[in-house]
C-alpha cells in the first residue's frame, strides 16, 4: 500500500490540474498527477508544430474519413489534420445527447492547455455579485478582493500580455507588454470609442502568450500556430509552465493512462481516502491514497467522477447532498457577430502572425441600463487583409491572375460575441447507465440548452456588432447568428458549484466539497456563474488559492 500513498493526488493535468500539481509540489507535498490519456512531452511530441503549410497533405483541411471518425469534433473548427491527435476520440468516449451539446475534449497530459484560446481576463466585482443581485443560482462565496491577489500571482507566473486599460468592468492585471493592434484596428478602436463617448472600448486582447522571455521560455514568435504546441513554450500550457516547475521540486510523479473511476470515501473520517484508477492500457484497477485530493478533470468529467463515486451514504455521488451536482451546466454561447470590409489602407500591411486579436469588453446592463435580459457579452475579433480577389474578368484566370495572387486583398474586420449563460438547475448532466465507453464505464448524458435570457441577448449580440462596425466606418457589414448550441464555447462550467450553503452548492468558499473536506474541485465545475470573460485565468487563480488553503489546513490537521 505504501508505494501508492502520497500526500496529494491531482486528478487531471490540464490548466487547473497543472496549477494544483505545481502549487502542492512546491509546498513540499509528495504529489501524484493522474491523467487519463497518453503523455505528450513538451516540444518533442509537438509533431506538427514546425511543419510548413504545404507539408500537410490537405493543407490543414479535413477528410471524409476524419469526419466519419469524429462525429462530434466535426461540428466545429477543431476537426482538422493539423492537431487531430490532441482531441479525444469521439468513438472511444461517446456521450448521450438528450439535447445537442458539443463536447470537445483533450485526453492527454496537458489536456486542453495545449489547444486553448489563451485569452485571459480577470473578472470584476460585478461578476461575483451578479447572482446575489439577480437572485439567480447561488451567491459566489468570494468577491473580487478575495481572488485579486491570486490573479496577480498566477498572471506573474503564467505570463499574460495585455494593456492596462483602466476599465472598471475588466480589471487590469500584472501584465507583460501588450501585443499591438494593426493600423486598421487602431483606427476602428479610436472611432468606436469616440462614437460611444468612451462607454465602449476596443482593446488589444489579453493573452497567455509571453511577449518577453520568462522562466526559460522564449517569447512569442508570432507564428500563430499555438494549437499545435509551441516549440518555444511561448504560451502558457501545463507542459511549458506548470509541469516543469512542479517536476523541479522532485515531489511530483505523473501517471498517464490513468482513468480515475471514483473517489474512495471513508464514512468514519467523513473524508476521501484515495481514488480508484483504471489503467487505460491494461484495464487493471489500482488504488492510490492521499490526504488531499484535487479534482481537475475538466468541469464535466470532474462531475462524472463525483457522480460515479456513489456510496450508500451518498447514493447520488460524492458531493451530491445539495442536489446540485451535475446541474447548472454553463458555457459561453457564441456564433453571433458581424463582419465587413474596410476601405483604404491599401498600401498598409503587417508582418508576422499575431496569436491574438481585439477585445470589446461587456458594456450592456451597466450603469443603470436595463435590457430585456440580464448580464452581458463581450466580443473578440480582428482586422486583416484577405487574399487576392477582385471582380475583374481579365484577372480571373491565366497569367495575370497568377501574378495578382501575390497581391493582398481588401481589409476586413470581423468579430464574434461571447455571451454569459445563466446557471439553470435543469441544465444538467447525468450518468447514462444504459451505455458504456471503451473501458466499460457509464457515460454522461447531456440535457442542456440556451434559454430565453440567452436568446434575447443573442439578438443584441448580432445587432450591436453590426451597429458598432458601421459606426467605426466598416462597410458591407453583415451580421451572423447561429443556433447557440452550448459546448461550442469550450468553456464548460458549473457542475459542482461553489456557494455559501451546503444545501445549495457542492463546494465551499475554498473549493472544498462540503461532504468531504479534503476533496478540492478547482476547474470549471466550481463556477457559480459564467460571466462572459474567458474563464481559464479564474480557474488558475482559484486553484492556487485553494492549494494554499489546503496545505494550511493540512498543517493544522483540519483535513
Amino acid at each position: 500500500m505504501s508505494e501508492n500513498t502520497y500526500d496529494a493526488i491531482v486528478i487531471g493535468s490540464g490548466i487547473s490540474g497543472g496549477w494544483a500539481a505545481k502549487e502542492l509540489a512546491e509546498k513540499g507535498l509528495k504529489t501524484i498527477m493522474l491523467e487519463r490519456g497518453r503523455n505528450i512531452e513538451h516540444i518533442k511530441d509537438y509533431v506538427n508544430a514546425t511543419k510548413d503549410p504545404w507539408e500537410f497533405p490537405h493543407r490543414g483541411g479535413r477528410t471524409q474519413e476524419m469526419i466519419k471518425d469524429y462525429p462530434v469534433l466535426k461540428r466545429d473548427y477543431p476537426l482538422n489534420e493539423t492537431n487531430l491527435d490532441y482531441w479525444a476520440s469521439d468513438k472511444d468516449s461517446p456521450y448521450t445527447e438528450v439535447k445537442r451539446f458539443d463536447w470537445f475534449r483533450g485526453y492527454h497530459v496537458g489536456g486542453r492547455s495545449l489547444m486553448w484560446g489563451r485569452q485571459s481576463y480577470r473578472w470584476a466585482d460585478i461578476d461575483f455579485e451578479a447572482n446575489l443581485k439577480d437572485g439567480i443560482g447561488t451567491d459566489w462565496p468570494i468577491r473580487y478582493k478575495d481572488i485579486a491577489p491570486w490573479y496577480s500571482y498566477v498572471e506573474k507566473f503564467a505570463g499574460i500580455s495585455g494593456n492596462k486599460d483602466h476599465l472598471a468592468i475588466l480589471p487590469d492585471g500584472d501584465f507583460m507588454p501588450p501585443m499591438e493592434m494593426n493600423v486598421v484596428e487602431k483606427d476602428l478602436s479610436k472611432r468606436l470609442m469616440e462614437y460611444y463617448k468612451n462607454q465602449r472600448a476596443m482593446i488589444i486582447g489579453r493573452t497567455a502568450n509571453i511577449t518577453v522571455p520568462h522562466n526559460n521560455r522564449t517569447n512569442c514568435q508570432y507564428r500563430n500556430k499555438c494549437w499545435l504546441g509551441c516549440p518555444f513554450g511561448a504560451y502558457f500550457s501545463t507542459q511549458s509552465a506548470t509541469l516543469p516547475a512542479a517536476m523541479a521540486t522532485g515531489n511530483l510523479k505523473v501517471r498517464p493512462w490513468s482513468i480515475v473511476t471514483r473517489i474512495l470515501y471513508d464514512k468514519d473520517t467523513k473524508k476521501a481516502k484515495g481514488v480508484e484508477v483504471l489503467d487505460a492500457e491494461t484495464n487493471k484497477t489500482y488504488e492510490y491514497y492521499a490526504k488531499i485530493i484535487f479534482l481537475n478533470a475538466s468541469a464535466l468529467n470532474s462531475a462524472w467522477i463525483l457522480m460515479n463515486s456513489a456510496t450508500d451514504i451518498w447514493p447520488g455521488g460524492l458531493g451530491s447532498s445539495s442536489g446540485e451536482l451535475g446541474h447548472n451546466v454553463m458555457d459561453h454561447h457564441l456564433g453571433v457577430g458581424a463582419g465587413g470590409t474596410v476601405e483604404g489602407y491599401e498600401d498598409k500591411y503587417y508582418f508576422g502572425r499575431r496569436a491574438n486579436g481585439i477585445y470589446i469588453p461587456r458594456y450592456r446592463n451597466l450603469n443603470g441600463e436595463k435590457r430585456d435580459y440580464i448580464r452581458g457579452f463581450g466580443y473578440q475579433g480582428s482586422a486583416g487583409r484577405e487574399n487576392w480577389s477582385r471582380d475583374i474578368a481579365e484577372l480571373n484566370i491565366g497569367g495575370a491572375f497568377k501574378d495578382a495572387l501575390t497581391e493582398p486583398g481588401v481589409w476586413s474586420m470581423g468579430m464574434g460575441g461571447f455571451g454569459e449563460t445563466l446557471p439553470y438547475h435543469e441544465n444538467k448532466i447525468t450518468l447514462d447507465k444504459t451505455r458504456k465507453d471503451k473501458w466499460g464505464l457509464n457515460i454522461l448524458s447531456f440535457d442542456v440548452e440556451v434559454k430565453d435570457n440567452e436568446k434575447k441577448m443573442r439578438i443584441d449580440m448580432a445587432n450591436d456588432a453590426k451597429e458598432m462596425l458601421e459606426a467605426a466606418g466598416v462597410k458591407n457589414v453583415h451580421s451572423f447568428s447561429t443556433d447557440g448550441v452550448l459546448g461550442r464555447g469550450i468553456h464548460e462550467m458549473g457542475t459542482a458549484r461553489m456557494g455559501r450553503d451546503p444545501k445549495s452548492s457542492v463546494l465551499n468558499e475554498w473549493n472544498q466539497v462540503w461532504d468531504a473536506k479534503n476533496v478540492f474541485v478547482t476547474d470549471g465545475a466550481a463556477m457559480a456563474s459564467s460571466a462572459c470573460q474567458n474563464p481559464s485565468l479564474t480557474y488558475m487563480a482559484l486553484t492556487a488559492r485553494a492549494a494554499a488553503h489546503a496545505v494550511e489546513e493540512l498543517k493544522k490537521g483540519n483535513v
Partner: protein
Amino acid sequence: MNRRTVLKNLALVIGGAVLLPSCVGKDGTSYVKLKHVNIDEDGQRLIADMAETIIPKTTTPGAKDLNLPAFVLLMIDDCYDNKRQEAFVAGMKAFTAKIKNEHGKEFGDLGTKTRETILMAIEKPPVTKTKPQKNIPPDPITNFYWGVKGQTVFGYTNSQYFMTKEIVYELVPGRYIVHYPVSKLKLKTA
C-alpha cells in the same frame, strides 16, 4: 546527400507532399489512383488542362509544374462527401460533352485563348471568392469549374513554390510589425 533525400526534396520542391500512388496511362503520362471517386484518365487530363489554364506556366511554374492537378484530385477524393463527388463528376461529364459538342475536340487540344474564353464564360457573373464554395451551385458545369479552380488556387497559394519564391513567408516570423508596407510583400518586383 543521398539519392533518397534528393528525391524527397525534389518532391517537395515541385509542390509537394502529394503522396498519391500513381500509374502510367495509355499516353505514357502518370495518373492518380483515387480511392473514393471515379475520375478516369480522360477526366484527370481535363482537370490538369483546366488547372494549367487557370495557373499557366509563364516565366514562373504553372499548375502542372507544381503538381497541382494531383492536389486537386486528392482534395476531391479525400475531402468531398459522396454527394459533392457525384456532383463534381456529373459536372465534369457535362463539361466534357459540351466541349466535344461545341468544338469537336477535347479541352486540352484547344488553343490557350479558346480555353481561357471557355472558362471565363463560366466565371460570369464574377464570383469574388476564390476558395471552394460551400453550397453547391445549381449548374453542374459551374460547380465542377469552381471545384477545380478553388482547389487549384488553394493548392497554388499554399505551395512551397508560391510561399517561398513569390511572397514573403516565414515559418517563424519572430516579430509582429504593425507598419509593414505592401511593397515589401512580394519577393519579385513587377
